[in-house]
């Protein structure tokens, strides 16, 4: 019985999550087409200031008389871009470093992993705050790079462990005996086996970066105004939590829906990877 | 004489996504007290499922079809509820599996695992249970049994672990031992020792043995009678000597032809 229930949610939850995420990504990509107004330009500061949702402004307006729907669309774009870019940095650096360490000689591997340990020991928030103190408010691109460059060590650990495991397997030994050169060995024979774990960790990275960006921007140390992001939208809302409820609610919903979808998809991928790895016998 | 074990029209199917897959399709045979019977077959023949069905240890997704019976000492094991089956297992039916590493509890000292059999089947005194365990470990030829009583399974070689399994299976002098590929994971010199030990203990205590194996050499070496299984059916049942010298079924002949034979020197 419990098995059947899990089977049903196992089938539908990931689909709904994927559809939600697709919609959010669509808004991000098509922000200029979706947004009815300029996200940065103010409207009539007297007539259009802090208006609740209406036909003209479906998600209301903010204290600067800007259209919230437009700011949310562009904010989605900035937040998703930041998360995606950070994930790409984590993916590229983490896989390259972890893959190299996994195939390296024990001595080189040990040195590479100590570097990872050191990187993991540095608290992310402190690095970001130090950077902000050093260069002032930062652009979405810089933030993405910072989050990516502080996120790769855990990825490289996961990749290295899986690569070590696969490198010891007979089918990789067979490929080595066949004379497959190292780059091809990594790309064709080792990484496909590590791919599920990598994908899962990319999802985890996205799920970690989105709230981090939101938190940083909310506290005013992330993406600088007037550029909208989910975090900076929430910061705008913080001034008027009661009579400007729509300022808080819609960005919060966007963040919650994204995180929920990403986590459901991540869990689904993890489960599938587990099933794939144990399903050895024909 | 009534047989010790009578398996009648045993049918086992495994449920999976595609539906039910028959593993055992109507198998009947009997084992007399003290007899050593081989159940021979290749992988997928259903031989292990027969053993598991007799012991009531089939996995959850397996189904035994109604209409069959496994009669043992006057009762149908298929119709016996689990609490009574637990009492029969270990006391009246002993079990030895292929992988002693998997069948032994990795976080319990091997001697305690032997003693536990006595305790769960009614031995009140821990000291008496321990003494019986040490005696049995000596009997199965575990070198330095007194000291190895306190060893963990991973500290023993494969052969020694299988000796411990034999001690567990035979401690309470069961009427029947079901041994599923008991020597397949062992090296050939260790296999010879474990098989000889099984035979000695069997002779001593009059235990009947159902030896499930893929290895015709093991059959030739130890058994008095053999059942050849293929595709869930018993295709031939014969005294071992007849089976090797006058095989009736084409599949038995194929198996014998494929069997690697060592030509020994003078």
């Amino acid at each position, binding site marked *: 019985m419990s098995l059947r229930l899990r089977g049903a949610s196992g089938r539908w939850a990931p689909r709904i999550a994927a559809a939600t995420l697709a919609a959010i990504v669509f808004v991000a990509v098509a922000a200029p087409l979706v947004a009815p107004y300029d996200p940065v330009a103010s409207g009539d500061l007297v007539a259009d200031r802090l208006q609740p949702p209406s036909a003209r402004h479906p998600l209301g307006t903010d204290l600067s008389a800007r259209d919230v729907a437009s700011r949310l669309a562009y904010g989605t774009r900035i937040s998703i871009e930041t998360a995606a870019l950070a994930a790409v940095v984590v993916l590229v650096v983490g896989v390259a470093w972890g893959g190299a360490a996994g195939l390296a000689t024990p001595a080189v591997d040990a040195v590479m992993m100590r570097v990872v340990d050191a990187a993991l020991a540095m608290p992310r928030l402190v690095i970001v705050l130090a950077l902000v103190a050093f260069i002032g408010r930062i652009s979405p691109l810089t933030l993405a790079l910072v989050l990516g460059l502080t996120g790769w060590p855990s990825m490289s650990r996961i990749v290295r462990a899986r690569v070590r495991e696969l490198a010891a397997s007979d089918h990789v030994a067979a490929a080595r005996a066949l004379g497959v050169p190292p780059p091809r060995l990594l790309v064709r024979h080792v990484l496909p086996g590590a791919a599920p774990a990598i994908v899962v960790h990319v999802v985890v990275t996205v799920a970690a970066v989105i709230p981090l960006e939101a938190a940083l921007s909310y506290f005013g140390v992330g993406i600088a105004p007037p550029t909208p992001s989910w975090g900076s939208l929430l910061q705008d809302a913080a001034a008027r939590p009661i009579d400007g409820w729509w300022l808080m609610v819609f960005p919060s919903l966007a963040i919650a829906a994204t995180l929920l979808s990403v986590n459901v998809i991540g869990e689904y991928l993890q489960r599938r990877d587990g099933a794939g790895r144990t399903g050895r016998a*024909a | 004489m009534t047989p010790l074990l009578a398996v009648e029209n045993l049918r086992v199917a495994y449920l999976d996504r595609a539906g039910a897959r028959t593993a055992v399709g109507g198998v009947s045979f009997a084992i007399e007290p003290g007899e050593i019977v081989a159940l021979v077959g290749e992988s997928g023949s259903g031989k292990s499922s027969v053993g598991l069905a007799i012991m009531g240890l089939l996995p959850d997704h397996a189904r035994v079809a109604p209409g069959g019976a496994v009669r043992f000492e006057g009762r149908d094991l298929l119709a016996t509820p689990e609490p009574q089956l637990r009492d029969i297992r270990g006391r009246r039916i002993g079990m030895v599996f292929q992988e002693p590493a998997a069948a032994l509890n990795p976080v319990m000292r091997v001697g305690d695992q032997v003693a536990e059999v006595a305790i769960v089947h009614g031995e009140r005194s821990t000291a008496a249970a321990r003494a019986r365990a040490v005696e049995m470990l000596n009997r199965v030829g575990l070198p*330095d049994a007194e000291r190895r009583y306190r060893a963990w399974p991973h500290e023993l070689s494969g052969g020694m672990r299988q000796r411990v399994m034999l001690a567990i299976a035979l401690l309470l002098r069961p009427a029947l031992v079901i041994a599923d590929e008991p020597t397949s994971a062992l090296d050939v010199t260790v296999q010879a020792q474990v098989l000889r030990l099984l035979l000695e203990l069997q002779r001593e205590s009059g235990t009947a043995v159902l030896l499930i194996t893929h290895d015709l050499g093991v059959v030739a070496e130890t058994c008095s009678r053999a059942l050849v299984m293929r595709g869930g059916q018993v295709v031939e049942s014969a005294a071992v000597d007849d089976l090797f010298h006058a095989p009736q079924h084409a599949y038995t002949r194929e198996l014998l032809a494929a069997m690697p034979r060592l030509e020994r020197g003078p």
Partner: protein
Amino acid sequence: MTRPEADTADTGHGPLVSVRGLRVAHRAAGFGGRPVTAVEDVSFDIGRGETFALVGESGCGKTTTARALLRLIDASAGTLRYDGRDLAALRGEALRRQRRRMQIVFQDPYTSLNPWHTVGDIVGEGLIVHGLARGDAAAARVGALLDEVGLPRDYVTRRPRDLSGGERQRVAIARALAVDPEFLVLDEAVSALDVTTQAQVLALIARLRDARHLTCLFIAHNLAVVQQVATTVAVMYRGRIVEQAPAHGLFARPRHPYTRALLDAVPVSDPRDRHTRVDLPPDAGAAPEPGCPFHPRCPHPAKDATCRAAAPPLQELEPGHLVACTKVTAAGL
């Protein structure tokens, strides 16, 4: 099954494979693991066309020897020569080119085939990485290889999980043969298979060996299987070769006490041949250095203190028949 005789008459350029004083030690798993010697002072030659068998029980070092020979793991000491060239000196591209000449088939066809690749990918990989064929030509070669190992050509699109154990092992053989090797290591290549499948794959291996004039290193624990294919047999015990002889000599007149015990332990193939066996004590851990590795279990009647004093060297008892037991060689010389 025909048994190719070792071609000693007209070679004139020495053995194809020559191993001298091979030692492989690796660090035991876990924190502070001490080095464990898996292979110690192993030497042998494999002549062209020979099928040299390494036999022994699990952990005796036979697989480690083969993997060191193929440069899949590093040797700690000793020399490995292939066709007169020092294998240990090969690096990078030179080693990669050498790999074309020596191939391997592993024991477990469930782990030795990449589960994410199709049969076509697996068999064609060697053709691609050595630039032997591409595109349609590669596909045709893969098809011909599948014919050769007795698999239907439409298997190219299947994945290992869709195949039986015997079929997978045929794929592994096709992968090894794709690069036209002259030397093939068969590491327990039929051990994991059902007996009827085992006989078929063994026959296939023997046929391919004869047709392609392969030199083979055949690793197995099943002596009956070895007897069917080997020209020369070396018996290993705890990392050392204890006896080596032409196959017929070894099976007809085993000399080392361990070889005798090993042959004696093989189950009979006829219930009428049941016999009482030599009682070999259980293996209770490594022998104390520096003695003969077998002496704690040795049933030889003349066993004495000298067996504990030094590991006996391999000595030639008869032409080609080497035994590492001072008691046997003393009696035989």
